[in-house]
């Protein structure tokens, strides 16, 4: 409804001048963000089904261990990884999956920072401690279809600048939604909800579709828009958290910070065990190695999550000393990181089974129709709007 002839709005508590202003806001906020939003909707569609597509493409043989088999020590897997790639650095471990352990490695932390594609992964069977599939150096840095979708969806291959740009486009989208709601009343006037005027012009029918689809899915569009913006701010939020909470906690230890060689680190399995013993009922997710830019230079950073639908979305970090192996305890999670963690599921739609994902995909397609019809309505009205 962006560039429509402005209806008389006095009856709806909005005067002509402010109606024109809102129409201007709606037109330009949506026109500027439309191309980016279309890209986000198209790349978001396969990303909703990342887990399913990942499982489908996963060529790793399933573990033959009986349920309840104890997991072997991750120390042996780390040693095996270092043997496979001598001189390399263990970057992090992912232990979330009951049957698998992933060991991420990089030539060095410095190299990983400059070239994230130098990070590669080794897959282990958690029960036998053997490789779940043979290490494949050619897998390193290979750009898969899903990675391409993720990069286009999150940072356009431009790192933080791309994230902030897409975050700003998300903000414009939210402004377009709010201004669209303000314009809804004067445009609908006395029409019944959801009327589709097929017998009049094509433009009027598309206006009706634009209004109906936009107002019906408004709540979902707002939730996914706002949480998308929050997700794009993850990098600065984590950086702020590391430099405030983490630094304050580690002020003492960081004073004589020198890199800890991977060969001198205390047992990572014991670090995991002591961290998890301190938080019963939680499940270990990952271990960020000392020196990793995502963690502390002198500590293992161990992420754990709860087991209920809500707490399984909330990850808590625990620190274990990288020299002595002593447990330092949990790191405080500030409100903005709790908000960020809760906005992930609400953006991804991956928190209540396959049916919710299918609904997410349908709503995503509807968002595309709202975007395209908006551009169409602006385009067909353009010559009229330019009239004196």
């Amino acid at each position: 409804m962006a560039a429509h002839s402005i209806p008389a709005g006095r009856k709806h508590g909005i005067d002509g001048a402010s109606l024109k202003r809102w129409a201007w806001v709606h037109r330009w906020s949506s026109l500027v963000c439309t191309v980016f939003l279309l890209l986000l909707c198209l790349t978001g569609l396969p990303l909703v089904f990342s887990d399913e597509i990942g499982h489908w493409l996963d060529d790793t043989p399933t573990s033959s261990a009986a349920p309840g088999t104890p997991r072997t020590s991750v120390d042996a897997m780390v040693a095996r990884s270092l043997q496979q790639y001598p001189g390399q650095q263990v970057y992090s471990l992912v232990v979330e999956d009951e049957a698998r352990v992933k060991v991420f490695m990089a030539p060095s932390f410095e190299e990983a920072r400059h070239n994230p594609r130098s990070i590669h992964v080794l897959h282990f069977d958690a029960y036998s401690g053997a490789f779940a599939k043979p290490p494949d150096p050619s897998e390193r840095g290979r750009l898969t279809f899903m990675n391409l979708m993720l990069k286009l969806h999150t940072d356009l291959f431009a790192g933080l600048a791309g994230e902030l740009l897409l975050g700003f486009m998300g903000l414009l989208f939210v402004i377009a939604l709010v201004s669209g709601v303000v314009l809804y009343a004067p445009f609908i006037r006395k029409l019944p909800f959801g009327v589709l005027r097929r017998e009049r012009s094509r433009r009027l029918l598309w206006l009706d579709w634009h209004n109906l689809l936009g107002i019906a899915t408004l709540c979902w569009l707002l939730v996914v828009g706002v949480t998308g913006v929050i997700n794009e701010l993850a990098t600065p939020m984590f950086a702020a958290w590391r430099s405030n909470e983490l630094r304050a906690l580690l002020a003492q230890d960081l004073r004589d910070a020198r890199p800890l060689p991977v060969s001198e680190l205390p047992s990572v399995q014991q670090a995991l065990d002591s961290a998890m013993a301190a938080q019963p009922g939680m499940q270990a997710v990952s271990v960020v190695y000392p020196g990793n830019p995502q963690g502390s230079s002198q500590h293992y950073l161990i992420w754990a999550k709860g087991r209920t639908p809500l707490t399984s979305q909330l990850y808590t970090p625990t620190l274990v000393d990288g020299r002595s192996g002593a447990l330092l305890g949990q790191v405080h999670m500030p409100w903005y990181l709790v908000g960020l963690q809760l906005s992930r599921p609400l953006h991804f739609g991956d928190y209540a089974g396959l049916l919710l994902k299918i609904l997410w995909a349908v709503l995503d397609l509807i968002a595309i129709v709202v975007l395209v019809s908006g551009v169409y309505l602006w385009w067909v009205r353009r010559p009229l709007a330019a009239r004196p």
Partner: protein
Amino acid sequence: MKQATTQTQSNTMLWGMPVLLALLSGTGLLLALLADDGWHLLAWLGVAAPLLAVGWCAWRSHRPRQPPG
């Protein structure tokens, strides 16, 4: 007095469905996050409410027109 009643009626007609759909889908989104798996069916229905409403409007618009009254 009469004018105020008319205003309330037209506001209900205008915003009734949009508010209802926003409440249903918003409740569905939160229910799926906060409640356990037993509530998923209700959560799905809530999130699907806008789709059902759109489907109904599309179906209605294809129906032959009823004479007024």
